[in-house]
Each structure stands twice: as structure tokens, then as C-alpha cells.
């Protein structure tokens, strides 16, 4: 690949192109963005590399910090048969990387009323029956840019262990790369969200403290204190504030 006209040797300084595009600060590598070669700084994330090349990303960038799952990317490396997956915002480029972003993941979200569901295997069967097509190949886990044990949570879903699914899928960013790679066409991240909602709604004990506080608010317990605070002059309010005690 480095033999191509205009390519840099990995780690070399950027070549001058047309006498203008010299950016000599960083060592450079060649990457292939949707098949086209660009010379980019070697320490760049995939997202920065795409922007460095001059693209304005519209689909394929979101929070830019690894939380939103907008920037799912697939890539190959020289001499490596594997199709790798990653988030563009947190994956670094490598020499010869050939990549493309996934602009959107086609997916049908099931419509349901959480109030009518139970946190067990019957719900998984009814809402996402495709879950049971799992062949335990583990492709989903290998594809997960968060490093989650996706197959394990799908297996837990098949057993109806909803709390386990929620725990294992907690850090899912819903990029959908697992679902795109799955040979059984399961929508893993959607199963994860369903299980999380079931867990929060049905499997955690209610807080007695919170229930008591809600009653206090409903019975207008704090009205008088609020009314006093809201009309207090700044000096008195400031004194009250700086003198307040701190819970350890």
C-alpha cells in the first residue's frame, strides 16, 4: 500500500500536496476512508482522521466521547482477514486501515406497554422472540466496542434472568454493531434496553425514604419554609448559606 503514488511511509512526515497542504507537526499514516486514501496524523482517532481529511460528519458523530453509539465503524487492517468493529470517537487509526462508518442501523423496535409486562422469560418471548434464534457463536461479543459479554446476556435473556441481562448490558451504547454482525439476526441492544427497563421498574425494592418524602411534598410540608426563603434578602440568605452544616 505504501507503494501507491502520494502515500507516506508509516510514521513519516506529511508530504506536500500541491504546495499548500503541509501540516508538519505529527507523524502520518495512510488510511482508506470509504476506499479512498488519506494521509492523517498517526495518533488520531478515526473520527478526527475523517475530519482531518476534510469531511463534515453528519451521520456518524454524536457525543464524541463513547456514550451515544452514533459512530459505529467497521474496518480492516493490512494482512488481517478480520472485519473489525469500533467506535470512531475512541478507536485510533493504524497504518493501512481501511474503514467505513455505519450511517444508521436498520432495526425494528418492538412497541410495548411496560405496565403490562412481567420481568420474566414470557416477556422476552413475546416482545423479542428473535432472541431465541441465538446459536451461541459469540460474534456479538467480539463485535462489541464496549467489550461487553453480549452473548452471555442474550443467553441470560433466554433463561428469563432479566436482572442479569440488565447488569451485563448496563454499559451498552446501542451502536447496533452486535445486531449487524449477528448471523441469527437478533437485536441484542434492544433486548438489553427492555431488560433494563423491566429491572428498574419491577426488580428493585421501593425506597421507603422516597415514599415518605413524596408524601411530605404532597402534603405541602415545605411550603412555609419555601415562602420564607424565597423572599429573604441576599444578606440573610448568604449568612444562612455559609453557616449551614455539612453532612459528612
Amino acid at each position, binding site marked *: 500500500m505504501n507503494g501507491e503514488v502520494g502515500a507516506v511511509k508509516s510514521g513519516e512526515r506529511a508530504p506536500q500536496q500541491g504546495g499548500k*497542504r503541509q501540516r508538519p507537526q505529527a507523524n502520518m499514516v495512510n488510511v482508506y476512508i470509504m476506499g479512498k486514501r488519506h494521509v492523517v496524523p498517526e495518533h488520531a482517532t478515526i473520527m478526527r482522521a475523517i475530519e*482531518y481529511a476534510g469531511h463534515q460528519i*453528519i451521520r456518524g458523530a454524536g457525543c464524541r466521547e463513547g456514550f451515544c453509539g452514533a459512530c459505529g465503524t467497521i474496518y480492516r487492517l493490512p494482512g488481517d482477514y478480520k472485519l473489525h468493529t469500533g467506535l470512531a470517537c*475512541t478507536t485510533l487509526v493504524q497504518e493501512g486501515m481501511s474503514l467505513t462508518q455505519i450511517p444508521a442501523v436498520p432495526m425494528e423496535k418492538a412497541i410495548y406497554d411496560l405496565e403490562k409486562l412481567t420481568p420474566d422469560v414470557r416477556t422476552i418471548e413475546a416482545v423479542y422472540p428473535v432472541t431465541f434464534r441465538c446459536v451461541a457463536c459469540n460474534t456479538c461479543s467480539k463485535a462489541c466496542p464496549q467489550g461487553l459479554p453480549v452473548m452471555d446476556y442474550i443467553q441470560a435473556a433466554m433463561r428469563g434472568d432479566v436482572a442479569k441481562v440488565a447488569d451485563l448490558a448496563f454499559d451498552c451504547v446501542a451502536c447496533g454493531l452486535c445486531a449487524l454482525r449477528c448471523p441469527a439476526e437478533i437485536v441484542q441492544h434492544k433486548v438489553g434496553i*427492555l431488560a*433494563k427497563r423491566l429491572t428498574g421498574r419491577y426488580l428493585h425494592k421501593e425506597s421507603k425514604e422516597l415514599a415518605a418524602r413524596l408524601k411530605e411534598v404532597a402534603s405541602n410540608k415545605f411550603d412555609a419554609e419555601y415562602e420564607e426563603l*424565597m423572599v429573604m434578602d441576599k444578606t440573610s440568605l448568604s449568612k444562612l448559606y455559609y453557616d449551614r452544616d455539612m453532612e459528612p
Partner: protein
Amino acid sequence: MYPDYLAGLLKEVDRTRPHRLGLAMSGQPVYPPMNAEERKDVLSKYHPDFAPGARRPVRIGPNKGEEITAEVAEMLEAHSMVEPKLMDIHLREPDYETDLLIIGGGGAGCWAAIEAARNGVKSMVVTKLRMGDANTMMSEGGMQAAVSATDSPTRHYLDAIGGGHFENKPELVRVLTEDGPGVVAELERLGVIWDKMEDGTMQVLHGGGTSRRRMVSCRDYIGAIIMRTLMDEVKNHPDMIAVREFEPAVELILDDNGHCAGAVLYSLDTEQFLTVKAKSTVITTGGFGRLHIRGFATTNHYGATGDGLVMAYRAGGKLAFMDSVQYHPTGAVFPEQIAGFLITEKIRGAGGQPLNKFGDLFVFPREPRDIESAAIIRECSSDRNNGIETYAGRAGVWLDSPIIDMIHGSGYTRHQFPGMCRQFDRFGIDIVKQPMLIYPSLHYQNGGIEINERCETNIPGLYVAGEASGGVHGRNRLMGNSVLDYNVFGRRAGQHASDYAKSATVGRLSLDHVRKHAEEMEAACIQTDLISPLILPSYTPEDVKIQQLARLGNVPARHSMLRNRFSPSERKTHLG
């Protein structure tokens, strides 16, 4: 992995840790909190809001003559994307009609849609990127709500208004704090997984400026958990809530009575302008971190360009507290690839300590954010020179995270901070064993479009909720109060705006305010090629950007913004 040149400094952190751990276990503050005078001093000398040129008077519009953040002034004094005359036919025959238009698909927008649906009113959510592409998604540490027995909503009120330097609108702080416990219960009913004790009691931690443990959390993914729950619920009601993604609003539409009556959208996919006619409108467009005010790196979402401010301002909406910007005390400094990334305040809530290059504490770790940030900037400034410098030319201070497991027990950090651990694991730094290097990062728009406790603005039919609004936090927001803000006010906006929609009648649609804005710019002799709202920032290298301007014979807003910022001499260099 930290480079060798930092090894000696890391040893200093280890050296001082046993003493600092003793302080942390004593139950007393590990460093004396500042009094009112000390706060004032550090803010006026070191907070970026007080730097020369940080603010200037805005020359046109409802806040004319007021000092506001310079970058915001520039954005308000800019051209519209829309030529009103060319839109006439689309005003007569709108592309979409709905009862309630919600601009922005983050936490506040989703709540507004859910509440409207519960109130029997159909809505349409239009969003710049995807649903949930919002700062909501990125919040990590927690949400404040007075749920514990030792706490009370009025104590929360006192903490919040003191953190805001007693300038917040009292009626807004009251509903923020009084609605808090109800929000916790309501989110749980929708399926949010709170961190709880075995018996169901909410786990509560401290945040900066809290006098009671009040921070409820979902490990360090609170935003992702709440956002995905709300989005999932929105999508469970396709009969009541329509969603249009990649179609940001770029101007509001008024009717001939001066009431808000919808918006002009710009489809990023097809580059079409589309009109929506609506009986009432809610702006939930979030903040402005991507304006990179004063050149700061930001923790914010890609789309956080303050579009709502621009639209509302042109339509006559009044802004409040637009002279203050929040810098989060702990943005990442190293490695360079994640510079500016948010390090959650929950780290300090759990006992993490900021330290200078000698491994010494120099500030109470849980001051309100503006104070904590100013103190960190002071420590790194040439007045003290106690910062740690990286090869990339950035300076920062340590945030001692290994002390957290020593306080709470082994395994606590990995369970409570999976997101933070993952972020640093990628670069070979184990935050359970090594501290992080941090510096303040542009985080939050303290002010915004002025609202009352019903989320109403001075324009009938226009409601605002979340970060786009102004008044709730005064000039400084406390940690965990923005997550609460978008929940409390998103719900309220949905309720009140849908009530309004039930009885509202819409007159003839008009963009006269956009024409008037252009006339006012001309009368004020404002020369600019800036077009706003900005929609997206551009991170393309400047030489490429210059050449893009000729593209297709038009000037997309996002490129124009940046061209405006080049000095003539710079332009000359690039163009030869």
C-alpha cells in the same frame, strides 16, 4: 500509559496519599472550604468569564446593550439561513402540521412529548441529529434530589441558590427542588435502574456545593440510562408522537398575533427547508459547548451549538444570564486524544482529590463548579506554576482516583465508574492505581431563554426547557442539577404547552421577525458573513476549510462561522 517524564510527579501523589487518606477518613473537610470573600477573589481573577474580552454588549434584539458572552453576541448578530420572501408558499401550505412542536430530541424534549401524549395531545419532535444525540446522553455522575431522611427540598433550595450566587430565579429553584423526589419516582416507574441499597434505599453521594448527600446515580452512566429509557418510551407511542431526525429547526415561525406558530426546518439529508405549523412550540435544544468559548475544549455533544438561543432571540425572546459560562472542573488533559472529555464529578463525590505537581491539596474538592475550576486554573497559572505540563503543551492537575478504593473498599471504583475506567483503560491507564490529569473544560450554558415556572417565555405559545432556558441556575449550576432540570422542566413544558395547544388558534404564519432582524442588523451597521444557527461545528483543517467555501456556490452556515473567525492576515496566508 503515562510517559516517563511524569513518573517522578506520580510518585509525589503516592507519597502524600497516606496523609490525605487520613484526612478523608476523619469526617472533616480535607481542605478548608472557601468563604464568600475568597470565592469572590478567585472568581474575579481566574474564572474565564472575567478575562478581558470575554463579554461584550450585544448590539441588537431584546437584550440590546447588555453585556453577554462575546461568542454568543457574535452568533446573535448574524444572518438567518432563511430568506423570508422565498418561504411565502411554504407558510401558506406548511409541510407539516402538529398540535405541539418540540425542537430537540434530548431529555427535556422526550419528556415534553411523553407528557403531551399523557395529556392527549399529539406532538412532533424534530431533532438535528438522532433522537438522544444530546448532552443528556453524556451525563455521568448523577442527579440531585432530596430523597434521604437527613435532607429536604428546602435544603436543596439553599444549596442551589448559594451555588448560583443568590441570583437564580427563586420560583424556578423552588419547583426544581420540590419536584426532585417526584422525578426520581417517575423515572423509576419508567424503568431507570437507580443505584440502591439492598432494602431499596437510594444510594446518595455528595457533589460540589451540596451540604447533604443528595446525588442519586446509575453507576457512571446516568445520562445514557435515562436517555435510552425516555427514547424507548417515546417510541412506544408512534400514534401520538412523530419524530423527524436530521431536520433541525433554524427559525421560529410567528403568526400575525405575534404568537409562536411553528418553525422552519432544514433537512441535513436533502438540504431542503421545510415548514411546520404548530399550536404551541417547545424549545429543548440544549447548550452551546461546541462554540468552544475562549478556545476551551468541551465536554459537550457534537450538536451543542446554541441554536435555540438564536431562533428565540430573532423572534423576540428574552435571554437571561447569558454572560456566564460553566467550565467543568475536571476535563481530561491526558492522553491528548480525549482532551476535554468529561471526568465525572462523582469521582470527587466519592472522595477523589485534586492535587498539584507536589501531590498537595490546594482546594476543597467539592466547591461549586465555578470556584473549583477557577482554583484549578489559578494553580496552573503563572502566578503559582503548580500545574503539570504534557508534551502537547497542555497543563493540568492530578485527580487522585486510587484513594477511592482505599476509602470505600477494593472493587468500588470498577463497579461505580465503569465508563471512566473504560475510557482510560483504552490508553493503558488504570485509574484504580493511577490518578488522572485534568483541567477545566467548557461544560454548560448557565443562562438561556428566560422562562417562568410554567416554562413560558415572553412569546405566547413558546415554551423552553432544559439547558436552553435561563434563570434556574443563575450564573453557576451545581453538579446534578442539570439532569434534574431537564426532567423537571421537560415535564412541565410538556404539560403546559399541551394545555395551551388545546385551546390555541393559529393565525396567518409569518417570518416578518426574520426580515426585521435583518433590518436591525443593517441599522446597527453590523458587517458579518456569519450565518446562524451554526448547526454543527467544523473540525476540518483551516486550509481545507478555506477551499470548501467556494463549494456549490453557496456558503453553508457551519463553514461561514469559521471563516468569519479568520483574521484577514490569516486568510491571506492560506490563500497565498
